[in-house]
């Protein structure tokens, strides 16, 4: 009953290494494929009908589209719409991975730091590139806060640079930490329920069971919320790189 057992990556099909990288199809790969397959199918089916008055599925697809599109318009502005496909993919991918992770016996792709860090690194590289492409070397002014005494400038620049560089870490650890902690907690309470019941102490198992039900609801909320948080932080970083105002 190791609560960390659920996070183990186990190969399903061993595949030969490609350019020195292991490409084995694992349980993590399976759930990534499922998340992408489900979200992709959902959006494809939702967008296959182009009725003037949408049906249920079409409306759901359009709402998901509108949700992310409005998020970008409000936080970045219309210039940000160039990054809409990427941000929309990010949102759907994280949302579906988190939600599928709530299924019993499933694997939570986003509970692995390497995955969330890779996503955050892509965001970081993209945002930094956008900043330098739009503002050239002037993008470095982002690290010099305006309206402070000259003596303080070196210290604050160091702080600003560190805070900028730790963004991918905070972005990835936030998602990974939320997912891992939630699932570990569920597993621990699940372990209590099973352990107490098998020891013949069923009445004592009621409390952890009730707590587990409540935590499952909370985890569902967190699964949605963290997808939203990751996406909106991406928008905020992008806005800073495009408009350089903070």
């Amino acid at each position: 009953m190791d609560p960390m057992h659920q996070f183990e990556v186990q190969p399903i099909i061993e595949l030969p290494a490609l350019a020195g990288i292991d490409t084995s199809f694992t349980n993590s790969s399976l759930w990534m494929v499922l998340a992408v397959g489900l979200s992709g199918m959902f959006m494809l089916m939702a967008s296959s009908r182009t009725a003037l008055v949408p049906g249920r599925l079409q409306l759901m697809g359009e709402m998901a589209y509108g949700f992310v599109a409005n998020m970008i318009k409000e936080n970045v502005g219309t210039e940000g719409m160039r990054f809409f496909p990427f941000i929309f993919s990010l949102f759907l991918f994280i949302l579906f991975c988190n939600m599928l992770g709530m299924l019993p016996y499933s694997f939570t792709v986003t509970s692995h730091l390497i995955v969330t860090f890779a996503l955050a690194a892509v965001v970081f590289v993209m945002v930094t590139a956008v900043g330098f492409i739009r503002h050239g070397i002037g993008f470095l002014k982002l690290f010099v806060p305006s309206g402070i005494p000259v003596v303080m400038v070196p210290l604050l620049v160091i702080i600003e640079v560190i805070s900028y560089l730790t963004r991918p870490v905070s972005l990835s650890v936030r998602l990974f930490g939320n997912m891992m902690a939630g699932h570990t907690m569920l597993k621990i309470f699940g372990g209590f329920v099973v352990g107490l019941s098998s020891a013949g102490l069923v009445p004592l198992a009621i409390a952890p069971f009730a707590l587990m039900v409540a935590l499952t609801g909370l985890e569902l909320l967190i699964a949605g919320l963290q997808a939203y948080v990751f996406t909106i932080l991406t928008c905020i970083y992008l806005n800073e790189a495009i408009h350089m105002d903070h």
Partner: protein
Amino acid sequence: MPQLDPSTFGSQLFWLLVCFGALYLVLSFIVIPRISRTLETRAETMESDLAEAEKLRGQAEAALAAYEEALAEARSRALVLAQEMRAEVQAETDRQKAELDAQLAEQAAGADKILAAARDAAMADLKTAAAELVGDVMQAIGTDKAADGDVAKALDKVAAE
């Protein structure tokens, strides 16, 4: 902690790239163009429908204005016609009244003439009768028959008094 086992990183990163890349391609080349076209078409249709409704409303308003104008014109024409009619009738009435007045005046004048003739005749008759009566009275009282001229003269004198 399985998350810190670097031997799984390669596979996870590889499949993340494959899966996320596939999702990105599907969304950016199929789903997003479709949905944005649908939303655009919807916005355009609504806009054109609203414009059409606005146009039709304008037409209805123009028709109403034309109707009211025609009504006002008809009303003023009716007023003019009524006035003309009234004036015509008045003129006709006046004319007929004048004609009647003239006729009546003529008849009255004729009657006056007849009356005057009758009165003259009556006066003449009265004179003659009076002269006869005077002659008879003088004959009866035995005076000489006065000359007719004298009697008539005396009678005229009396009548003048």
